[in-house]
């Protein structure tokens, strides 16, 4: 994307995000929070995808973070705000342990294992009835910041900035080289001195930590958690669809996809409350078939005649 245009758009988006709490009511703020949350998840999913590893475990780490946060408050009396970085830390440690076991796997084997792990987290939490509240979940006495819409908005924005900051770090540092090399050609990456396992582990732990952080923010925003709500397939499918629609292997693509699909989802939820996920499925199929590089890829093709940035 043209750098000046990107800067102008980023400045405009920043201005809208900063002024929104002062201008908008509760409903638009909640829509904005949802979009920011899914945008952050989409960006983290894409960060790992840059290595070629496709994770279907976003909801697992997100739900784990959500439960870590709410249980830290309810069972250990931890302050709500502190419980969010605690959730991130716990998710990161779990990802580190799991990573040692599963990051030797590639392609669909890795994807299936991440999907299975998310389900295992859900089942374990659902069955620890005394500690987690079981299928009925747990409820806090109140929400973070006394339920202040603008307070929760700023908190979610903070979560988004953490994800965007990490993604920018991935893009602008040696990590970009490492992950792109691994995705392009593992043999050449190894023979160029890339320690594949180490970089994959870093990407997996960082993205999982942020997903846990976002789970903590989410649960503190709503004040309750049930296995069905925080481990919902929405937290895997929506970010995935957003990143695919906007364009993978970049920070801008998932942002673009999240804005478009986030706004569309609000409309679709009202029109077909129980079937909007079907529309996401259709979007994924259409994007994979007809524009595998997403909208950003189409834009790059149109502006540069197909000579895109190294991806």
């Amino acid at each position, binding site marked *: 994307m043209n750098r000046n245009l990107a800067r102008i758009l980023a400045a405009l988006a920043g201005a809208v995000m900063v002024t929104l709490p002062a201008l908008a009511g509760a409903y638009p703020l909640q829509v904005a929070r949802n979009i920011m949350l899914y945008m952050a998840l989409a960006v983290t999913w894409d960060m790992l995808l840059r290595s070629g590893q496709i994770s279907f475990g976003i909801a697992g780490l997100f739900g784990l973070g959500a439960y870590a946060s709410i249980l830290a408050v309810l069972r250990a009396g931890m302050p709500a705000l502190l419980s969010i970085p605690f959730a991130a830390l716990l998710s990161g440690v779990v990802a580190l342990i799991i990573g040692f076991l599963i990051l030797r796997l590639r392609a669909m084997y890795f994807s299936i294992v991440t999907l299975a792990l998310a389900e295992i987290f859900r089942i374990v939490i659902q069955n620890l009835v005394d500690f987690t509240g079981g299928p009925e979940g747990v409820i806090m006495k109140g929400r973070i910041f006394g339920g202040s819409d603008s307070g929760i908005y700023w908190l979610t924005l903070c979560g988004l900035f953490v994800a965007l900051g990490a993604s920018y770090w991935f893009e602008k540092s040696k990590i970009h080289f490492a992950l792109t090399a691994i995705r*392009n050609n593992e043999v*050449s990456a*190894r*023979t160029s*001195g890339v320690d594949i396992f180490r970089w994959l582990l870093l990407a997996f732990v960082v993205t999982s930590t942020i997903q846990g952080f976002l789970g903590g923010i989410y649960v503190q925003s709503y004040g309750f958690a049930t296995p069905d709500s925080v481990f919902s397939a929405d937290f895997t499918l929506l970010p995935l669809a957003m990143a695919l629609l906007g364009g993978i292997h970049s920070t801008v693509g998932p942002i673009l996809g999240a804005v478009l699909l986030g706004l569309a989802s609000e409309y679709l939820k009202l029109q077909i409350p129980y079937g909007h996920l079907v529309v996401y499925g259709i979007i994924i199929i259409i994007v994979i078939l007809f524009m595998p590089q997403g909208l950003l890829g189409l834009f790059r093709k149109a502006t540069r005649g197909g000579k895109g940035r190294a991806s």
Partner: protein
Amino acid sequence: MILEIAGLETGYGKLRVLSGVSLSIGAESVGLFGPNGAGKTTLINTIMGMNRVWKGSVRFEGRDIGGLPTHEVARAGIALVPQERELFPLMSVADNLALGAAFIPHVVSRKEELLEQVLALFPILKERYRQLAGTMSGGQQRQVAIGRALMANPKLLILDEPSLGLQPSIVAEVFERLGQLKKTVSILVTEQNVRESLRAVDRGLVLENGAIVIEGTAAELARNPHVERSYLGI
């Protein structure tokens, strides 16, 4: 000696491919010849840590590298230009070259100087610096692959079948470049094109059925009746 291999045995599963290979390479260029299936690529993969050593040893600058993972072998100073080019096709030439130095700790500070050397050796890469590597011709891609390997400032450069899939005029150019390179780096090159490569290397080894059967200078190999009959078509 830079590389010393003694009594090397290895293979895949229960299949033994190399049975007691011994060789050494000093400050020179060495050609490794043999028919398909002789074990040339297996030997290279074993040196690079991609294959397990069953028996024997692989020593590089006196250090046993037999059990090291590939990225550590690369960091120790051995660079590989694999068969079939094995580029990063969706990266630009610039990124391919930069990646060659990015993960080798002792050369990171010298990457600008190394880049200049590589671009001087392969001027076409300077012209195509921003082009995606996967969109270049076969010969140019081979130059990118060699250039990337040289960005690691290796002490030993291994090339696996560098002429594979290239037209004859490009093959001659590749071997001309190898001739220039051997002044600054030790080279081990495997080749099917024995005639062309004997002009570029100092010494040659013939690997058949997992063992070195002939060893000598390039001139000796060119006169050897078995080499003449089996590899030079005389």
